[in-house]
């Protein structure tokens, strides 16, 4: 069990949190100066992040106090449903995308968390499963949304080629294979690229958090690697499932491309 031990913790005061609003003000000033018209969005983003993270902080605290996996599953189920709703908003060009997204995020969450427990990487405790589950669902959501967004664009722009392939007697899957591959790549490439450049161009969040909390850098690096590699598995499952289920919604049972 690599991560059974508890790491050190730090106390962050509300005053310190409030002090970072100076940097938010800097962002707003840049927006005003350059007339980027983003001040309102910045304000909403700051407010929402404060409210959402504070709320989830209390929820996580309660789940940790209960120390029951039932609450962990309930929280992850809620995240999956909200994630599917959010991703559907970005994949509007794909008809009936909600169910594929819901299934994709569920498979990504369950299989990834199941594997990290079975492989003995994390203990099956709320303290580990809640944060890892949150990262898995969040990244799986982004990958699925990007993949489906690309899928919708590709089907529209490539309708002529897809129909020309169907006209040769190809099945929908045969006609869609090149499109599915490109869509899958779109969903996976951002995480693959950030995994490639981690430690060189940027320090990922978990590692930064652990270093700030006073952890040994070696432990921070190992945990970061575990999370990055776990996320690679989950985003691939999510993008594969979402595109694999959603593309059929563009077609009839007679292998005809529907009017888009």
């Amino acid at each position, binding site marked *: 069990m690599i991560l059974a031990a508890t790491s050190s913790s730090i106390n962050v005061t509300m005053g310190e949190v409030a002090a970072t609003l100076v940097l938010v003000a800097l962002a707003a000033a840049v927006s005003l100066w350059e007339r980027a018209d983003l001040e309102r969005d910045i304000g909403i983003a700051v407010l929402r992040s404060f409210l959402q993270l504070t709320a989830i902080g209390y929820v996580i605290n309660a789940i940790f106090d209960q120390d029951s996996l039932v609450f962990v599953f309930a929280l992850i189920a809620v995240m999956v449903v909200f994630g599917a709703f959010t991703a559907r908003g970005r994949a509007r060009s794909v008809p009936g995308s909600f169910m594929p997204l819901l299934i994709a995020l569920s498979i990504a969450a369950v299989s990834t968390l199941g594997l990290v427990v079975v492989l003995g990487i994390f203990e099956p405790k709320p303290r580990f499963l809640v944060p890892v589950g949150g990262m898995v669902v969040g990244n799986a959501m982004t990958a699925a949304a990007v993949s489906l967004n690309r899928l919708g664009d590709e089907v529209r722009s490539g309708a002529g080629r897809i129909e020309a392939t169907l006209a*040769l*007697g190809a099945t929908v899957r045969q006609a869609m294979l090149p499109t599915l591959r490109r869509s899958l790549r779109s969903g996976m490439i951002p995480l693959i690229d950030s995994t490639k450049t981690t430690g060189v161009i940027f320090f990922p969040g978990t590692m930064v958090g652990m270093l700030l909390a006073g952890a040994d850098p070696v432990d921070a690096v190992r945990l970061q690697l575990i999370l990055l590699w776990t996320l690679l598995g989950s985003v691939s499952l999510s993008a594969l499932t979402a595109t694999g289920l959603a593309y059929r919604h563009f077609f009839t049972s007679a292998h005809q491309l529907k009017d888009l």
Partner: protein
Amino acid sequence: MILPDLTISLPSGASCVAGPSGSGKSTLLRLLNRLVDPDSGTVRYRGRDVCEYDPLELRREVCLVPQLPALLPGSVADNVLFGVGLAGRDADVARMLELAGLDPSFAERDAAQLSVGEQQRVMLARALALEPDVLLLDEPTSALDEEATTAVEETLRRLQHEVSASFVLVTHDLDQAARLATWVVRLEKGGDLVGQGPVGELLRR
């Protein structure tokens, strides 16, 4: 609504569906090989409702060459063999290219690097590789210049003698219809039927 109250028949041999843009010519071809189904009415092939056929089998038998080239990434040979490969068969690429009016040396060229006219011929070659009973050609010369149009028409006339397939050609050009078909269906904008019959008789009217 497209093609309302339309009753037409297309005999074996070389037929042409002629009409202006918006008359539903391309839709008619797509109905014939079930790329779309009618909201109402029936499309029959050899006396049987096309909806009773397996759509994949029907499309190999009644094969459509779309108006605009839409080749797959890869070589010309990859494209020619794609459709026939799906059916679990093989084809003589050089022969198919010759039938479509291309030199066999085109086989290894990158399909994406060809001119529109050459791509159109590769589309024709890959349809011919399926040895269809009916070849549906959607305005095969609409994207070509005069010289290429003449060459494609010559290829199509030659093909009518060299392969046993029937042809249904869609065009907005009545002169082209007269040059390439023996039977003509004339549509007007909105999909109403102007007339149908032997080409000489109908186009003289």
